[in-house]
């Protein structure tokens, strides 16, 4: 009797040990838990249903917060918009605009833009319709504008609609936008539309669109796909829109799965559980390539850059000297960092407009890596190591500066490299990193950037409203203070020449003139070293070879989604 019990017990214990051993990764003992997996291999295969219905699964590492274009400008929300919503004009793989809902893109030449630049007229196609069959009219455009700037709606941003003072709709196919002053970045308007015939009644009843069911369940859309369902934390499903006014899509259904972890995303793509992944970190690229997955990059305006704080009040005194700033840039080997850590997939951008060749003209070249040159510049500027502690000093002030950024692995890696390379020329870099909602806390919230704590700031940014070249946070009027606690000039930098040019470019409706102004700004950034590129930050996509016809745009990523197809 006794023996029996202990036998049974020890058997069970052995089974448990087996389970425990699996954690150690011993493959030979792992049959037991894996046996259940047989079900999934037969039922989980995508091959069987593909014969009749073409279904593609994509992975997003972040779930979209809402689908209403007014309520989120998050990247994953906006890229998903190409499936089910529509833009007035889209952008191709060269990031060039082409008409989508309009018959032509307004310009001075075709009369779409008035002489004084204060009125822009859109002519809508007459065959465009919502997925429920209702025509898309000028009223939908007017409604989208009115709802965006309505104070009862907690929209994520009122830009650029707050520049439009009125919209006239003389007929269903004509939209006339009125401006108080010329507004050069007008192309960033109409990145998504909301259906007036669905949402006007909601607004009339609730006084706001904040709680409209359509926001998270947009059953009526205007893209090649219709929204079907969204299960929070798991997936969203889109099915082909048979009412579509352009060429219908080839793939029948698209699933988007939300997988928050990079390594898990790679595992899923390599395992064939998904055909497309977005926002791939460079560290994942070799594994994906090894598994035969294509990596496609597309410039989307973003560049990782060093932003220099130049302020008598807040910065380290050395930062005020342009030659010292230049020395800092020359002391860091950006090119090797990109070659080694970013696997040669990106280069060092010389210009804030690196991905807009039209505006980066003449192209600005980054400063070369030249530690000896940097040392010479520092010596000449009077920063020498007079007390022999390894760090340069001047007038009793040690050359110790703060570099802050957000907690992304590659940023921390760059910080460590920069810290060491600057130490080699005698500059001590203190490195700090923050969660992004802390990093960007306002002056009022004691955020580290807007209170002037950081001499060097690092993040990835694009011209405001890319592919428009606009920018704003270098303006003198944006310097935060107690009276203007939301100010966005975290460099506390006020350069009057730069200020005038930034204001000028945003009113220049003629692209050629604007190009000249932007080039001047570009040159100032370079010469006065207000900004230094670290690496180009294009969109990185992982694409299964089973997907064909794939092209991406940096503005409207899925502009040709209807041509995508699945092969075996």
């Amino acid at each position, binding site marked *: 009797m006794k023996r029996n019990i202990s036998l049974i017990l020890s058997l069970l214990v052995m089974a448990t040990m087996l389970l*425990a051993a*699996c954690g150690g990764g011993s493959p030979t003992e792992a049959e037991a838990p894996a046996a259940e997996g047989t079900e*999934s291999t037969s039922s989980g295969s995508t091959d069987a249903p593909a014969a009749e219905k073409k279904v593609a699964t994509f992975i997003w590492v972040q779930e979209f917060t809402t689908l209403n274009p007014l309520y989120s400008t998050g990247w994953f929300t906006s890229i998903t918009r190409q499936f089910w919503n529509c833009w007035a004009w889209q952008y191709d793989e060269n990031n060039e605009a082409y008409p989508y809902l309009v018959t032509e893109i307004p310009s001075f030449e075709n009369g779409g833009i008035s002489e004084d630049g204060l009125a822009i007229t859109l002519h809508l196609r007459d065959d465009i319709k919502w997925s429920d069959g209702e025509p898309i009219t000028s009223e939908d455009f007017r409604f989208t504008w009115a709802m965006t700037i309505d*104070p009862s709606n907690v929209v994520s941003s*009122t830009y650029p609609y707050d520049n439009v003072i009125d919209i006239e709709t003389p007929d269903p196919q004509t939209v006339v936008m009125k401006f108080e002053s010329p507004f050069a970045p007008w192309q960033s308007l109409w990145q998504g539309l909301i259906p007036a015939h669905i949402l006007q009644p909601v607004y009339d009843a609730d006084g706001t669109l904040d709680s409209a069911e359509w926001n998270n369940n947009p059953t009526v859309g205007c893209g090649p796909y219709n929204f079907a369902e969204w299960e929070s934390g798991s997936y969203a499903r889109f099915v082909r829109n048979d009412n579509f006014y352009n060429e219908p899509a080839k793939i029948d259904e698209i699933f988007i799965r939300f997988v928050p972890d990079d*390594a898990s995303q790679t595992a899923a793509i390599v*395992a064939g559980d998904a055909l497309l992944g977005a926002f791939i970190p460079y560290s994942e690229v070799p594994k994906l390539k090894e598994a035969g997955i294509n990596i496609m990059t597309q410039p989307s305006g973003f560049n990782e850059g060093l932003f220099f704080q130049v302020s008598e009040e807040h910065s380290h005194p050395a930062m005020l000297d342009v030659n010292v700033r230049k020395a800092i840039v020359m002391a860091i080997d950006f090119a090797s960092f990109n070659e080694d850590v970013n696997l040669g997939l990106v280069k060092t951008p010389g210009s804030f407009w690196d991905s807009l060749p039209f505006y980066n003209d003449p192209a600005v070249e980054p400063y070369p890596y030249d530690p000896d040159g940097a040392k010479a510049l520092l010596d000449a500027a009077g920063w020498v190591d007079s007390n022999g502690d390894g760090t340069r000093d001047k007038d009793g002030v040690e050359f110790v500066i703060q570099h802050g950024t957000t907690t992304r692995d590659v940023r921390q890696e760059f910080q460590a490299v920069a810290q060491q390379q600057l130490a080699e020329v005698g500059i001590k870099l203190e490195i700090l990193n923050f969660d992004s909602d802390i990093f960007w806390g*306002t002056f009022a919230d004691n955020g580290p950037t807007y209170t002037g704590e950081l001499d060097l700031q690092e993040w990835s940014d*694009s011209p405001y409203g890319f592919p428009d070249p606009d920018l704003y946070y270098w303006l003198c009027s944006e310097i935060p203070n107690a009276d203007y606690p939301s100010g966005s000039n975290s460099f506390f930098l006020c350069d009057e020449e730069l200020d005038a040019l930034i204001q000028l470019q945003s009113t220049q409706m003629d692209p050629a003139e604007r190009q000249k102004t932007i080039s001047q700004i570009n040159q100032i950034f370079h010469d006065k070293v207000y900004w230094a590129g670290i690496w180009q930050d294009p969109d990185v996509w992982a694409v299964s070879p089973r997907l064909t016809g794939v092209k991406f745009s940096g503005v409207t990523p899925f502009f040709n989604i209807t041509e995508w197809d699945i092969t075996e």
Partner: protein
Amino acid sequence: MFRYILKRLLQGIPLLFIISLVLFLLMMNVGDPIATMGGRTITRPEDRERLKRQLGLDKPIAVQYLYWLVGNDWTKVDVDGDGIADKPGTRKGILRGDFGKSLVTKKPVTELVGERIPNTLLLMVAAEVVTIFFALLLGIYSALRQYSTMDNIMTALLFIAYSMPIFFVSLASMYVFAILFKRWGLPYLPTVGMFDPEVGKTPAQVLSHMVLPVFTLSVPYFAAYSRYIRGTMLEVMSQDYVRTARAKGLPRRQVVYIHALKNAAMPIVTVIGLDLPFLLGGAVVTERIFAWPGMGRLFFDHVSRSDLPVVMGILMLVAAAVVIFQIITDIVYAWLDPRIRYN
């Protein structure tokens, strides 16, 4: 008994109040929810000021707490930014069952949390059941063979399991059972998610997606529980009544299962009872790695965006569940042990 329950419930109220106050103060200072609302670009100053006003974040902390607690429908708020509070508020406050709306998604917190509770419970309860079952077996076995070679080996293995960081077990098991097994042509497990959306939420799908997360969750808990059970059993077995029973010459099996286990059951039940409400909170790390749509992931996603209503909603829900389960555990305890009477 009824009076006791009532008393305990009333005691729970100030407790929850303290918790809410402390957490609210912490959450008010963890970051700016508006800072990241602009997506990849920084939120514009104009939008920051407007959103702050519209979301009521410009009010003093005390007022925000009051609104969160009892709502603001009794007062007027300034919606359009002209400095005049002219529109009646719409919030009812948590005391009237309104947990507020997520700052990020604008969805009601009750809806966001409601979607995740079943998923989390499915995963966590499965892990708990697996854990307890194996822990009982092993714990009893180890106790009976204290310091035997087998006990030592088992203890060593359990300690290893207990000492491994969960993310390590998660990633390694995913790598072996999902990636390597597929590469080797063996039956393999799915990597992430709760089911393959292309197939649908079938029981077979959910089950196969559960295997790896349940396994990873169970490993450390299994070790902890079986150690606890071993300890409890050892303690009970050194009690006089067990010695007496042994001395009387009762069969060993009877001594172990009738005398010892029955008496060891109580502390074990207590520990399990007190752990249960925490299952509601899910597992932050495991859910994140396996992309399981549970509460832990919801919490992490929203805490990293300083989304106060959601974070507070989740924490208060778990805290309330803990209070209730403590009372239930006490009652079960009294029922199991006739010596205890609550009056």
